[in-house]
């Protein structure tokens, strides 16, 4: 792990891993979509709209997982000042924001035919909307502060403080009386969904997770390249300045 925690080593090892994650995601999406559209039955209450759940639920899980990754990276950034922790947090924010937006959009599209409304200000939906704003805040910090180490510290503080919202999202349906239904998969007494509906959901969830990890790894690699470009540009400017000083002497 320590060997990997070096940007140059990370670039060497993450390339093959990225390919495996991409292939795994593509295969699982093919299997999952076949199960969703060909073999999985209707739900006795939701009818065919249960198919929206195969996107909505993984997107919501990954929205929370993405922010948890940012919180863990923020600890690495604040405590150990590790450059890869900064890179990881910065790379995860746009991907997490996109999955949060997808969870909100698909939730609304499911809510209209099932609840009769696209939106309710209930605890689950509102806390997920707050999560989207936290992601957007992190992206804004990274873009607003030019010096990456300062931006990293500010983003890490928001990343850690904002993490309080993740358990609120998870337990909002238990703590408050919400329109959103309670957990039916991640329960201490086991899932309450019929296996015919549960299996496509799990396959799609793993496919989306592999996709998320592949995108995160690819975005981290891009961020490392961006920092190398910045570093080389600074070296170029420094060389030009020292050359000019020697000529002046």
């Amino acid at each position: 792990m320590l060997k990997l925690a070096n940007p140059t080593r990370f670039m060497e090892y993450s390339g093959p891993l990225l390919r495996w994650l991409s292939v795994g995601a593509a295969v699982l999406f093919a299997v999952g979509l076949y199960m969703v559209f060909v073999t999985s039955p209707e739900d006795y209450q939701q009818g065919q709209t249960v198919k929206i759940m195969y996107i909505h639920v993984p997107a919501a899980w990954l929205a929370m997982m993405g922010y948890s990754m940012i919180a863990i990276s923020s600890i690495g950034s604040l405590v150990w000042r590790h450059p890869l922790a900064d890179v990881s947090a910065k790379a995860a924010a746009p991907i997490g924001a996109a999955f949060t937006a997808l969870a909100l959009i698909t939730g609304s599209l499911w809510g209209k035919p099932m609840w009769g409304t696209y939106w309710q200000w209930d605890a689950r939906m509102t806390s997920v909307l707050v999560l989207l704003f936290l992601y957007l805040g992190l992206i804004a910090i990274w873009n607003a502060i030019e010096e990456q180490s300062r931006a990293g510290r500010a983003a890490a503080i928001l990343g850690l403080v904002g993490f309080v919202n993740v358990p609120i999202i998870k337990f909002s349906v238990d703590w408050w009386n919400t329109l959103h239904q309670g957990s039916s998969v991640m329960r201490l007494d086991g899932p309450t969904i019929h296996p015919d509906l549960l299996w496509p959901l799990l396959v799609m969830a793993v496919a989306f997770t592999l996709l998320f990890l592949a995108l995160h790894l690819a975005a981290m690699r891009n961020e490392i390249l961006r920092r190398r470009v910045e570093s080389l540009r600074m070296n170029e400017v420094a060389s030009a300045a020292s050359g000019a000083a020697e000529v002046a002497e």
Partner: protein
Amino acid sequence: MLLDLGRHAAFIWLSYAAALMLVVGLIAWVELDRRRQRRLLAELEARGVRRRSEKHGARPAADRRKA
């Protein structure tokens, strides 16, 4: 019947269209960004700019990495 999604089909298709747009958009974002950073790095290295660690006989990054 296959793909007979009932009276709420529009909501289901819209959801899957949103997911497809998101996946394609994210893949395009990382791929275009990768190409841009590789191009900028290659331009700098072509001008002879090296990292400090590479100035004393170490191979340039372009030689070590795969495309």
